[in-house]
């Protein structure tokens, strides 16, 4: 199914400035990131100054301003996860995939992001892959997780 166009996302929301975050969330969900051009269109259609749109989009970690990889691995570096070794996990991910945080790997498959809290502090260190939570992460568990994601991707490609 093709992603809905910006037009259909904006449908029935035009000229309603308070819908800004909802529209940005939908754009983020369907396109994976918020492009400059989308922001300009949103600004025009909702009647929100471009500065406001950019300010909101740059403020929240949930919005990406650059394209993300196919799989987004989010590593929590909040206080609880930090004391339980989130840094080791981040290093493991960075080393294994060879990308810096919030950049896309060369094959376009992975983006690593670190956020300040995922809201599951008792389960820390927490890692999510595309929205699936994994608790009590260790570098070893993460290595297996990344391998399994590679495997599923390879299967998908061979099925196509």
């Amino acid at each position: 199914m093709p992603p809905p166009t910006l037009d259909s996302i904006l449908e029935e929301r035009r000229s309603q400035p308070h819908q800004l975050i909802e529209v940005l969330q939908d754009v983020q969900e369907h396109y994976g990131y918020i492009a400059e051009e989308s922001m300009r269109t949103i600004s025009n259609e909702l009647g929100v100054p471009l500065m406001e749109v950019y300010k909101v989009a740059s403020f929240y970690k949930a919005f990406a301003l650059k394209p993300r990889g196919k799989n987004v691995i989010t590593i929590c570096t909040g206080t609880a996860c930090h004391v339980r070794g989130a840094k080791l996990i981040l290093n493991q991910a960075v080393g294994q995939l060879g990308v810096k945080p919030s950049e896309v790997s060369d094959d376009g498959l992975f983006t690593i992001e670190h956020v300040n809290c995922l809201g599951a502090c008792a389960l820390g260190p927490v890692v999510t892959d595309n929205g699936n939570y994994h608790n009590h992460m260790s570098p070893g568990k993460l290595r297996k997780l990344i391998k399994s994601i590679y495997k599923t991707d390879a299967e998908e490609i061979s099925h196509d």
Partner: protein
Amino acid sequence: MTPKVTVNIDGANIKTARGSSVLDAALEHGTCIPHLCRVPYIESIGACRLCIVEHVVNGWSKVTTSCTLLVQEGMVILSNTEKIRKLRRNVAELLVSQAPNSRAIQDIAVRCGVKEVRYPFRNSECVLCGRCVQLCPGTFGVKAIGFVGRGKDRRVESPFDIRSELCNECGSCTDLCPMTVVPCDGPMKTGEEYLCRNCESKMAFAEEQGICISCDFGEGFQCERSPQNF
């Protein structure tokens, strides 16, 4: 005629217009509360935290910024207590460590009684006071610059870091920037920052911290008590 309310600032009962902020009321009646981010006639955002005061309610005092606190009938405000001076001194110290090259901020720091800077000098060009953002008129009232990012990555920028077509090049932002208001003669070099304390000699009572002096500084910052406005 606008309705008046009576507030008590540092023991003085003053009558002021309803809807004005405590900071405006205090300045209007001659109590100088140090402030940096306030731009007259524009709603304050409480960014610099220098104008903190104690707001006493039922015997309990709450520290809050006076620029965002609106006057209410019978309000009791303390602007020059030991607690406030200590907190304000710390705020000023952090500001001067962030941007030691700003004469305006150096002045404020000394006026707030900063004697030494215990934090590493960061030599930033910006203290995020937001004066430029508050004032930027843009085109049709649409701002051309604003705060971008969050936390330690917060900065003032135009959308996508290219000059916005809404910018009129009016220069209001640079006029109001504390980095350009009465610029320091010799910008301090990296590694050689210090608290200049030049303006300390102009203070009437150096030991009376927080007291208002008719300083050059007021000129650029539209301080009601600057020599021009007397």
